[in-house]
């Protein structure tokens, strides 16, 4: 295990070793030794992995939510991530073998904010967006919060963590687009009823942007505070490349293009200008001008 980095806080860079790689429905779960990263990790943090080996032609790191961590064990600190194969980088990850090495940077990003009071919380996830939700649920329950979970996917094999959710949740509601598991429909079809039933104060969400937008809207309508972990395309994961920006309204009412990697990935749902993600909305600080690259 090589650990690079001299800071006591923040992220570190480690060479991890593959402990295991298993299938979970249409996803893969990768377990890696990760040196000091697990000790620093809080729910909502992510890691950025280099892919393709030492001489890789793929320069950009791949970012993944941390599914679980173990601070100490036979292998020292380990962590698990969940991924779907949707490109050359994740394809490389899916072919890793036990003892292969992977360069890991983490923990990255701002984790979920936790309520100070033992309030009711609803956790909503789409697909493998559920990965960071189980550690979050544990943290919330440790604070005495009631935790209800809503998991959704296009089809049953794209749900992730149903058993975990059953273990931790006061109630679990499942939706699939095709009706292959749970209720046919979307998470936001069932969310209003769950919010009403639980009288939840906080909604935590992770999944595709359109789902987050819809969840944030429902939460706001029910007077609940929402914390959304976004999935934005990143190049570095550490805040230096400025690729992963989205328009977010600040406390001063001014919209800024914030970096998902260091200002997020968790944002207040009522602060993201969801309709305008992918654009520079009018009135954004410094918008808009033509210019160099």
């Amino acid at each position: 295990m090589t650990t690079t980095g001299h800071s006591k806080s923040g992220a570190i860079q480690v060479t991890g070793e593959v402990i295991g790689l298993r299938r979970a429905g249409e996803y893969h779960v990768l377990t890696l030794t990760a040196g000091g990263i697990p000790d620093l990790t809080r729910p909502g943090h992510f890691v950025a992995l280099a892919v393709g080996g030492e001489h890789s032609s793929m320069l950009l790191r791949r970012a993944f939510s941390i599914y679980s961590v173990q601070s100490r064990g036979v292998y020292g600190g380990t962590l698990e991530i969940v991924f779907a194969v949707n490109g050359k980088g994740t394809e490389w990850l899916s072919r890793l073998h036990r003892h292969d090495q992977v360069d890991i940077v983490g923990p990255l990003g701002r984790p979920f904010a936790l309520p100070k009071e033992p309030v009711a919380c609803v956790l909503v996830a789409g697909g493998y967006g559920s990965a960071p939700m189980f550690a979050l649920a544990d943290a919330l329950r440790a604070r005495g919060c009631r935790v209800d979970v809503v998991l959704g996917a296009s089809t049953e094999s794209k749900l992730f963590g149903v058993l975990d959710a059953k273990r931790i949740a006061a109630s679990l509601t499942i939706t699939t687009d095709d009706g292959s598991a749970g209720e046919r429909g979307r998470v936001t079809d069932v969310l209003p009823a769950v919010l009403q039933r639980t009288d939840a104060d906080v909604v935590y969400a992770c999944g595709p942007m359109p789902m987050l937008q819809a969840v944030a809207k429902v939460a706001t309508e029910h007077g609940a505070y929402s914390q959304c972990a976004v999935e934005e395309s990143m190049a570095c994961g550490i805040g230096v490349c400025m690729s992963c920006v989205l328009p977010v309204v600040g406390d001063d009412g001014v919209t800024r293009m914030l970096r998902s990697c260091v200002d997020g990935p968790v944002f207040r749902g009522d602060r993201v200008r969801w309709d305008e993600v992918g654009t520079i909305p009018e009135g954004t600080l410094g918008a808009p001008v033509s210019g160099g690259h």
Partner: protein
Amino acid sequence: MTRAVITHGPRPDAAADVPDIDMTTWLAGLELPSPVLTASGCAAAGRELDQFFDITTIGAVVTKSIMLNPRSGRPTPRMAETPSGMLNSIGLQGPGIDAFLDKDLEWLRARGARAVVSIAGGSVDEYTRLASKLRHVTDVAAIEVNISCPNVEDRGQVFACDPVAAAEVITAVRRNTNPGIPVLAKLSPDVTDIVAIARSVVDAGADGLSMINTLLGMVIDTDTMRPALAGITGGLSGPAIRPVAVRCVYQVHAALPEVPILGMGGIRTGLDALEFVLAGASAVSVGTVTFHDPGAPARIARELAVALAERGFESFEQAIGHAHRAPDPAPASGGPVAGHGHTLDADAPDTAVEAGVEG
């Protein structure tokens, strides 16, 4: 003499392997304890990378190009991965010069890091005002002028592609900033004759040259069947462009051997950095690889020191422009040896004969 960059390497086991070689370099009068710097736009203002290595040990942090006013940058997607590289169209997102000076530069100063401030503008006047803002700012090691920006007063023609416009910008910056601070002009490779542009900006007062900026490129997403970037075109960087960059440095150093060059373009290892030095660079910037390996600037500095020592160099400076020199007569008298470990007579008979005559 071993400098700080070597002894502060983050991997404890690596420090012992680094040879005792003087890595000091001078860039247009600026003394740097290490010849490896960050590259503009790839290190923000240094703070994020300081988690991964001690940024006071590298040559300098070259900050992301700053403009006069806050700037939101372009819509997303801003980035696409390409073979051994990436295409970006960030659009110079930044806080504007005033906030930059108050926060970012102040942080670098307090941290004790050397800062090369990169500036960018849309008109000669904007560059002039940026230079004036920096005139009385202490703790600026050098100014790098990013001239790969569209000139709003000339139908968006990029300054760096026009020797006259490029010279106007450099003249304005040189006149309006502290004469004691070196001004580096950052050149674009997207020109017919980079030597002509280099001559023009040097005549206009540039103390040194940074080269190269990204190459203009484009990726089309075959799923959407539309350009992958919201900005349509973007700047190509990474190891894919390294041969272009080495060629540019070599050509300009051959034509203007007295002009210091900060070389950059796809440096990923110490050997990559060595190529630039041999081609004529007095220092190098490490850019896109930082996205892949945030510890890269410190690692590359260590690897470069090892590579220089292995080739018999006693100091970094000895290696600058070495590729332009006639092959060494013989691997004797303590000087750098040609080819590191192979004999001259097998593959260079003419040189061997000449050496014999001289001997």
